[in-house]
């Protein structure tokens, strides 16, 4: 056991690099993260060395900044604690006293006020409903005693590529990711799990890279490939699979609040699906993140933009658009600009930008003026708040662009247009006359205040008008400036989330002062820097993660791991994660053989319980009735299910899908009885079970072989002896039940529109279908593990 390591804590980058006792390191880290639950007392002892970023600011930000922070209008007693100069200034009403006296807590008003027994002077005041715990007070006291040193918020300092830690006798690490992970894992007293089995690895990678289970031939090929680089070959094959683009597009559709209807009251149809097809294409063609984002933010402003760039710019038109007759045009036009501004802040910067719409941000250095400075970039579109009510509804309000069959045959080959008619999509186009942007007092559309110029929060990175053009293209350049501290970190963190189920920064949408600190700050910065240095290459980043030992661990959880690290913060095992709404559907359809593998195209309307649209509609517009599709349109992937915003697909919502009302960067994962009911009773699932069992019965194999094959298709592994014995016994019992009541068997296999093969014995069919359906309901079937 190494007693001392040079654990270069992330925080040390901004001061000294210092050797720290491993024990202290653990305490520090635990102390930091045990405060994730906000109001809880840290519970741990006070760390030996207090760090502003890790220990003090979270307390000040959460409990003090609301009245003593960046928001000038809400600031009490002229005191601000978010800046060093503010905090060290003399008191406004007593120039001899100071809020902070370095090294002297007992003469620091801050400490005296937070520790006072007199509630009339106590801070935070009882009326604020905020309290400091004894432990937090002790931390602040010690911090002052140690010199009360301030530091800039970590996320606003551009990442520098950290040195990869050297770890003695490390035969586990496969790449840099592992070194960082292993270092902190060891510090926490944990060891990595063994590598997952080949079966597990294939299924995991296939789900992560294509969102589909591996086919039997993929399973056989990988199991039989004994070469040293079998795993890497498998990963490369999956990265080249055209379904990779679909899988990667899924979270981006949440970010971009993509939907097939306009949202708001009457909620008519829109045709933005060609934009969605472009996203899939962009991932498959491995556009760099820079190109991917720049085209979406400013494709229309590039030199001689082609139709593809214009199409990409539709990103900023995916917001909701009202068709409610009688609304005030300007109110809604500004609402759209607001949505774009908020989306920009959340999607690319992970800053809660929208907080600064009505007043200066309470916690982060984003003034209301900064907000409207950013707003100005998106405020130039030649658009209306209300183009027409539902009776005059358009599928794509101007500015828009027509995509013809000729376009699709030549330049826009990735669009899966099904007919010969043209399709119109919304795009961005600024008006030739610059619109003046004003601060809106309290965020209200008819309360304009001071005029602002296009600008961005200087605390993140000053918007240098010499370097950047004052338009959305300049905005994109600012985003990809190597000095921008957030862009790469934010994206890398979201990619990490895709594979590990949580971010290195847990608050995916908030890298600000109120957000969680990164669990692995150096890893985050290393990945971010490396990603930027290598041309923002997304496939490369993904492969890097996939190749790591961290990723390849087994998902089994030991008692020790459960005790020491119930949240698996230190990644000593792989996560087990329930599949998302769309992937749950895909998994069942794909393994049954029913899945329509078509990529892109107009969204479809599969089975849906009756009355969902009808019971909530105003009765106007073409979406007042749900007209279900038929044939192979019933079996498309979940991402192609038509999203009507005011009544989203119910089985998707039950599995925590986004309603696409606004930009979302992180889905919640729940485990509820309503989900059980979907897999138990949704005709889509039952039909899949019917079709798979039918196909199996038609094969010339024994019953045991059919069951085994179903098992391998659905669980993607060989069953244990106990498992298969139990399943075979279950089959026998069901077979007896259906034999005794053939009518029930006939009823059971009547589900769904896919044609039934009447030559098959219904009792046999129903019995096997029962087994297949049971397998779909296994926890493991819809869990990535």
């Amino acid at each position, binding site marked *: 056991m190494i007693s001392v390591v040079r654990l270069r804590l992330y925080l040390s980058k901004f001061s000294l690099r210092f050797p720290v006792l491993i024990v202290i390191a653990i305490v520090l880290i635990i102390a930091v993260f045990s405060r994730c639950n906000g109001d809880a007392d840290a519970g741990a002892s006070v760390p030996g060395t207090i760090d502003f970023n890790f220990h003090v600011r979270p307390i000040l930000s959460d409990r003090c900044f609301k009245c003593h922070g960046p928001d000038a209008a809400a600031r009490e007693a002229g005191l601000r604690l978010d800046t060093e100069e503010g905090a060290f200034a003399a008191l406004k009403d007593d120039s001899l006293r100071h809020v902070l006296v370095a090294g002297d807590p007992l003469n620091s008003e801050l400490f005296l006020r937070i520790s006072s027994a007199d509630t009339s002077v106590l801070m935070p005041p009882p009326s604020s409903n905020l309290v400091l715990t004894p432990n937090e007070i002790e931390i602040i006291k010690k911090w002052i005693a140690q010199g009360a040193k301030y530091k800039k918020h970590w996320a606003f300092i551009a990442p520098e590529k950290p040195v990869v830690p050297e770890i003695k006798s490390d035969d586990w690490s496969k790449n840099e990711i592992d070194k960082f992970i292993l270092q902190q894992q060891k510090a926490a007293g944990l060891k990595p799990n063994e590598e997952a089995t080949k079966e597990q690895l294939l299924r995991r990678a296939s789900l992560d890279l294509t969102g589909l289970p591996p086919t039997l031939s993929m399973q056989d090929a990988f199991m039989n490939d004994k070469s040293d680089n079998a795993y890497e070959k498998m990963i490369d094959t999956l990265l080249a699979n055209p379904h990779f683009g679909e899988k990667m597009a899924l979270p981006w559709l949440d970010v971009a609040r993509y939907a097939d209807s306009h949202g708001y009251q009457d909620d008519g149809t829109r045709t933005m699906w060609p934009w969605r097809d472009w996203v899939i294409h962009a991932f498959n063609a491995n556009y760099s993140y820079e190109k991917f984002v720049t085209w979406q933010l400013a494709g229309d402003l590039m030199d001689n933009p082609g139709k593809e760039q214009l199409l990409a710019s539709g990103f900023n038109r995916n917001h909701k658009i009202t068709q409610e007759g009688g609304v005030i045009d300007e109110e809604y036009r500004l609402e759209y600009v607001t949505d774009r501004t908020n989306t920009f802040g959340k999607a690319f910067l992970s800053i809660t930008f929208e907080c600064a719409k009505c007043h200066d941000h309470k916690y982060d250095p984003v003034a209301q003026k900064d907000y409207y400075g950013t707003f100005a970039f998106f405020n130039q579109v030649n658009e209306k708040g209300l183009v027409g009510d539902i009776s005059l509804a358009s599928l794509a309000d101007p500015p828009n662009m027509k995509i013809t069959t000729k376009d699709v045959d030549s330049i826009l080959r990735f669009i899966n247009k099904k007919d010969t008619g043209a399709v119109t999509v919304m795009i961005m186009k600024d008006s030739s006359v610059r619109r003046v942007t004003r601060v809106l007092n309290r965020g209200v559309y008819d309360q304009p205040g001071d005029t602002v110029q296009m600008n961005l929060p200087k605390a993140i990175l000053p918007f240098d008008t010499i370097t950047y053009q004052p338009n959305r293209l300049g905005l994109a350049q600012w985003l990809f400036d190597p000095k921008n501290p957030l862009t790469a970190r934010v994206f890398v963190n979201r990619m990490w989330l895709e594979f590990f189920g949580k971010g290195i920064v847990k608050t995916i949408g908030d890298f600000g002062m109120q957000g969680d600190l990164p669990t692995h700050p150096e890893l985050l910065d290393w990945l971010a820097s490396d990603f930027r240095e290598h041309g923002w290459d997304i496939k490369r980043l993904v492969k890097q993660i996939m190749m790591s030992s961290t990723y390849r661990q087994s998902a089994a959880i030991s008692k020790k791991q459960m005790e020491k690290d119930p949240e698996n913060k230190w990644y000593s095992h792989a996560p087990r994660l329930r599949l998302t709404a769309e992937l749950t559907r895909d998994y069942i359809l794909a393994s049954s053989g029913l899945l329509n593998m078509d990529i892109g195209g107009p969204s479809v309307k599969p089975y849906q319980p009756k*009355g969902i649209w009808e019971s909530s*509609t105003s009765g106007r517009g073409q979406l007042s009735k749900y007209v279900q599709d038929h044939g192979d349109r019933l079996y498309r992937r979940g991402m192609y299910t038509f999203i009507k915003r005011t009544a989203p697909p119910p089985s998707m919502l039950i599995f925590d899908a986004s309603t696409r009302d606004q930009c979302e960067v992180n889905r919640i994962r729940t485990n509820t*009885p309503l989900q*059980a009911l979907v897999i138990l009773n949704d005709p889509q699932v039952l039909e899949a079970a019917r079709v798979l069992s039918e196909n199996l019965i038609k094969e010339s194999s024994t019953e045991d072989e059919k069951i085994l094959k179903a098992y391998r298709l659905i669980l993607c592994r060989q069953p244990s002896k106990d498992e298969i014995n139990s399943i075979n016994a279950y089959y026998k019992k069901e077979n007896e039940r259906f034999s005794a009541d053939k009518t029930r068997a006939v009823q059971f296999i*009547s*589900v769904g529109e896919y044609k039934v093969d009447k030559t098959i014995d219904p009792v046999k069919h129903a019995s096997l279908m029962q087994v297949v359906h049971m397998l779909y309901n296994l*926890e493991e079937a819809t869990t990535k593990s």
Partner: protein
Amino acid sequence: MDEFNKFRLNTTRRHFLTKAGLGIGGVALGSLLLPDLFGKKEDDTQALLAGLPHFAPKAKRVIYLFQNGAPSQLETFDYKPKLADMLGQDLPASVRMGQRLTGMTSGQKKFPLVGSAFKFDQHGQSGTWVSEMFPNMARIADDICVIKTIHTDAINHDPALTFFQTGAQQGNRPSMGAWMSYGLGSDNKNLPAFCVLLSRGRGNGQGVYSKLWTNGFLDSVHQGVVFSSGEDPVLYLKNPQGQDKVSRRDMLDELAKLNNMAFDKTGDPEIQTKIQQYEMSYRMQTAVPELTDLSREPDHIVKMYGADCLVPGTYAANCLLARKLSEAGVRFVQLYHQGWDQHGNLVGEMPLQAQDVDRASAALVQDLKQRGLLDETLVVWGGEFGRTNYCQGDLSKDNYGRDHHPKCFSIWMAGGGVKPGISYGETDEFGYNIVKDPVSVHDFHATMLHLLGMRHEQFTYRHLGRRYRLTDVEGTVVKDILA
């Protein structure tokens, strides 16, 4: 259960807390959607939830009869004879005071005042004014508290509805019911804490949207569960053809057996949770249809609510179902009844709307009262804004319409600690501005939370760095209407 598994399960509970991002104090009490995880006595989560409610509640449950589309205050509870006297005269600018108008009337050259075509009378000992269209609600005048001075910020349906349900016109904030589910959970572990019932009237309708019962940034278990009138009261509840309770039981047993084998290998406590959720879904399949079966209600109840209550999907049926759900412990039952948007033909449409809701709304209050439940159940009746005192479009001899009006409208509340038999607040003689005791939507929310035993400033949820409240940054409890 051996010690290890116990430990794992306990860890799951804690794990669930943090995983859902709720943190301490962040999890609802037992409800259908958070079943046994949180229901057990020895469970440490009980302690974590300490603090809610903040004080002894008057109301334990809420039934909200939302009149979607905005019924006119001038034809329901706010009697303004002056408007009849001034028929056809232009709304004085001194009254309008620059109030913004919707795009539907902002182009009008004239704003001809129009009084109610329906007679008003005073009712009960309280002398509450009620229009003749609502004879049954008039009969319960002494049980209800009419607030005549609700006002809102929005002038169009979507933002106004969203504001009423979530406390904000835009954005994806949790709805009232989701907040209740989050804060107080459900008294019945076999039912969701927040149920939604939809019906459609015969007047001009404006639609409802799932964001009105959204969980917003709260965990999705707090999402309103829509109970539909179709054959499946809850989506996907019914067994498929060819399956029954016995075969389902066998399937669940087989699943549990195989899931447990997987648990032995992987040790993931989520597997145990999954097994429990399947059990819960199985219990729901019995509990829910029993509850939603209205056919076995006794005659006197059917008479009270009206024969329509046996027609699934009607407002009357939903009122009766609301009573049953509430009685069974559902924290928040939200009804939406469409059809109150009388821009034109108010004289033709509004009586039809009234016919559909009058009897059942009153019956619900009476029914709760006779069961001794009214004291602990808050019933609310009202829409998202009011309507203009002037006519939209042409004023004809015997018909008129009214545009949206945000500055005053009437709702009523009953039971659950609200003072019965009073009218609160006063509007001017034009029925346009408030002259005494305004009640904002935030005030209304604050008051409702107060009745449920919660201090609205302290009932918060931290999301992306900010502590959110149903009342945003405003709201004052209307003390004068508390019993």
